[in-house]
């Protein structure tokens, strides 16, 4: 490509990027358009999930063996049972809530509405993780190492939580949060710097850093950070002054982390869309060549993008340590870093979208626990749903074909990377 063409293409992309944010048509239309694909993807995912539940159910096969009608009845029944368990697991059982409200007993009410708050609790790390990935994608880096950053963030936060004593909560909590963010930032900075300095692709380097982080946590928890009086690889409990406050009494675990996550989401939004810095970052992500010709220091923004992305992922781990577990245990993260990739794409790499996507995933994950207990559907169904939704988001052409939607100009999927190793 000649220089001239490069510049021309770059300016086109910049204009596209600008109009995308301003948009055309009424805001309602724009909202509808941007929500269409994600909603259809989720819906299709749930339908396919139902199909999957049916075809792996022995009861359904047995019922079909008796008669077709019985088979269909059983199939619908099992889907109803599963998804209603998912719903009550995620939001609480309406009948139980109204009964609890009538009884007027505090703890009974709290128990009845607890599932809803548990969903929020489960969503919180997803918000951080999704923001991490989204910011990375905006800067043109694929931070597949969020999982490792979650771990390192948690390690730093746990250490700051138990090793520093005698501080008031007002100082200790921000300090521990900052430590967690710092840990994640460090783990994001290294691959970012390697990319800038040597061209080593961040996808490979972050995958490697993930495993280094796992091994590091294994070592720390079996040695230096191990609780002295415990046989299990667990860190000491953090100081009370570092625990994120909970808002309601037992058993509701809903804590300050959720609001911190919302505040961080707002901050990321402000950073990306209201500052020159964010504009530059997005330009680097949208078209590094254009950014270079516009005089933006591309590599610096890539490193910064990875670092901030890492810090956000680190906060996901921090949130779990300071808000829920109060200590660091082996394999405490159930793949937040990897799920976050799906989240960021589902939320169209926009902080607001990410928050909603995180709420959806948190709700699904929390509800699926109930589904496992009462309907016998293994919790892993959520991963399958997630994968299916992610495919539809990443290849919208499939959804368009399924629902006979009008084709957009470009049928290609989302592109994030351009080879690795070299640059």
């Amino acid at each position, binding site marked *: 490509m000649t220089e001239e063409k490069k510049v021309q293409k770059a300016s086109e992309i910049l204009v596209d990027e600008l109009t995308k944010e301003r948009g055309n048509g009424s805001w309602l239309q724009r909202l509808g358009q941007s929500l269409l694909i994600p909603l259809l993807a989720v819906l299709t995912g749930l339908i396919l999930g139902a199909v999957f539940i049916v075809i792996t159910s022995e009861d359904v096969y047995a019922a079909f063996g008796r008669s077709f009608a019985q088979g269909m009845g059983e199939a619908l029944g099992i889907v109803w049972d599963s998804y209603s368990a998912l719903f009550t697991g995620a939001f609480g059982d309406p009948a139980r809530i109204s009964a609890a409200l009538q009884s007027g007993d505090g703890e009974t009410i709290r128990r009845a509405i607890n599932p809803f708050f548990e969903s929020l609790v489960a969503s919180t790390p997803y918000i951080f993780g999704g923001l991490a990935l989204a910011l990375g994608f905006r800067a043109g880096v694929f931070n597949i190492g969020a999982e490792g950053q979650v771990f390192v963030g948690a390690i730093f936060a746990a250490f700051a939580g138990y090793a520093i004593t005698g501080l008031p909560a007002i100082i200790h909590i921000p300090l521990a949060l900052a430590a967690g963010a710092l840990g994640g930032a460090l783990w994001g900075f290294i691959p970012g710097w390697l990319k800038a300095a040597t061209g080593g692709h961040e996808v490979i380097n972050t995958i490697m850093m993930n*495993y280094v982080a796992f091994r590091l946590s*294994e070592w720390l928890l079996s040695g230096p950070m191990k609780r002295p009086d415990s046989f299990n690889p667990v860190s000491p409990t953090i100081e009370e002054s570092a625990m994120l406050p909970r808002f309601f009494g037992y058993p509701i675990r809903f804590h300050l982390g959720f609001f911190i996550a919302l505040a961080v989401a707002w901050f990321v939004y402000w950073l990306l869309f209201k500052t020159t810095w964010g504009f530059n970052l997005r330009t680097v992500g949208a078209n590094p060549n254009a950014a270079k010709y516009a005089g933006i220091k591309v590599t610096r923004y890539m490193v910064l993008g990875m670092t901030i992305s890492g810090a956000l992922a680190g906060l996901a781990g921090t949130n779990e340590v300071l808000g829920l577990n109060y200590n660091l245990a082996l394999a405490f993260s159930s793949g937040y870093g990897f799920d976050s990739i799906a989240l960021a794409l589902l939320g169209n790499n926009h902080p607001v979208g990410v928050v909603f996507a995180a709420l959806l995933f948190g709700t699904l994950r929390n509800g699926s626990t109930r589904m496992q207990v009462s309907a016998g559907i293994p919790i892993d*169904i959520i991963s*399958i749903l997630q994968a299916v939704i*992610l*495919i539809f988001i990443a290849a919208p052409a499939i959804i368009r074909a399924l629902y006979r939607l009008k084709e957009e100009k470009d049928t290609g999927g989302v592109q994030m990377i351009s080879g690795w190793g070299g640059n």
Partner: protein
Amino acid sequence: MATTALRRELEYISPTRRRVMGIVFVAAGVFIWLLFARPVGATDFTTFGLTPGGTEMTIGDLMFPSKMTLNAAAFLCLALGGYQLARGFGKRTNLILGIVALVFLFGFLAWAAAGGSVNIAGLLSSSLVKAVPLTLGALSGILAERSGIVNIAIEGQMLAAAMVGSILGSVTGNGWIGLLGAIITGGLLGLLLGWLSIRYRTDQIVVGTVINIFATGLTSYISSKFLQTYQELNFTSIFPRVPIPLLSDIPFFGTLLFNQNIFVYMMYILLIVLNIALFSTKWGLRLRSVGEHPRAADTLGINVYRTQYMGVILSGMVAGLAGGYFTLGSVGRFDEVMTAGRGFIALAAMIFGNWMPFGTFGAGLIFGFADSLAAKLSILGVNIPSEFMLMAPYIATMIVLAGVVGNVQPPAEEGKPYIKEG
């Protein structure tokens, strides 16, 4: 001549790198002398066992004075480093680096087993076995990436294949059918990767991640819903060791290399076949040209999409074979997430081996050795946390990728979807 110029350019070692390497060699020597040779008692002897398990043939153990040998090893590294600093080994630098690394490892073992013994043959044998899924996984990566498609779904493909292999093997009572099922499963997931990234031009990393999430979810779902209740579905026979006549009678190396199960032999065969196919046949030239410059390949009449489909499907099949190793070649049953990130280490081995079949085998052996050694450390009474040993492959890969040791050369156009013109 252009090729000569190119070769000279590829073999060019910058003065900085020459010096860095020299310092690395010297540092290795100093390290061996300070930390290994000095603490060892003057009268200690190290014994290396040379008989791997699973054979009746025994050969004598290798016994040598620890301190003297370690001093010699340190001296060798220092001498090599000195020469490198003064004159430079030129294009043989990487070879020398390999030798220094081996000497260093030898020194480490001699020190760890000073006054005792370590079964080198057992260690090497288990390294070879552990290298099998890594090498096969890396070969799978090569097949896809040489055709321009990034396959980070190796992990997921192995996992799904491992489960199908175990179930089919258990139901039919025939390991070969299980293996066939595993290979087909891998191939189908390869096809999925190809379909989404070629037909829909979806980001290849995203598709790979999706397949990994999907395979993990699916196998864990089926495992906890069925395999734990019906254990007869997950109880397959394991392929036995098959000593190859004559070859396995060669002392030491024969018993080490040719008294293994069929997965090891299939790895040998694939290594050789793939090496020839990639670099000495028209097929390989076409595959590589698609990965390097699809537009040019297209102009010359090569069907880019078909070639890429072939690449990813073959890649998936090889990953499936690697997956079959876990259940049919090693454990005999499927456990949730049993691949435990081997697919990603395979990816690392692929890069480490510079996208070359035998290079990745070497990388697989090194990684397998690190893994085996980590398990042995506590037995040897060495006070190094095994976790650091297990970290080594990842860190080494990052160093290689950063171009410190040498330049790795990925296929030029991988990861980018090819859009046919007109």
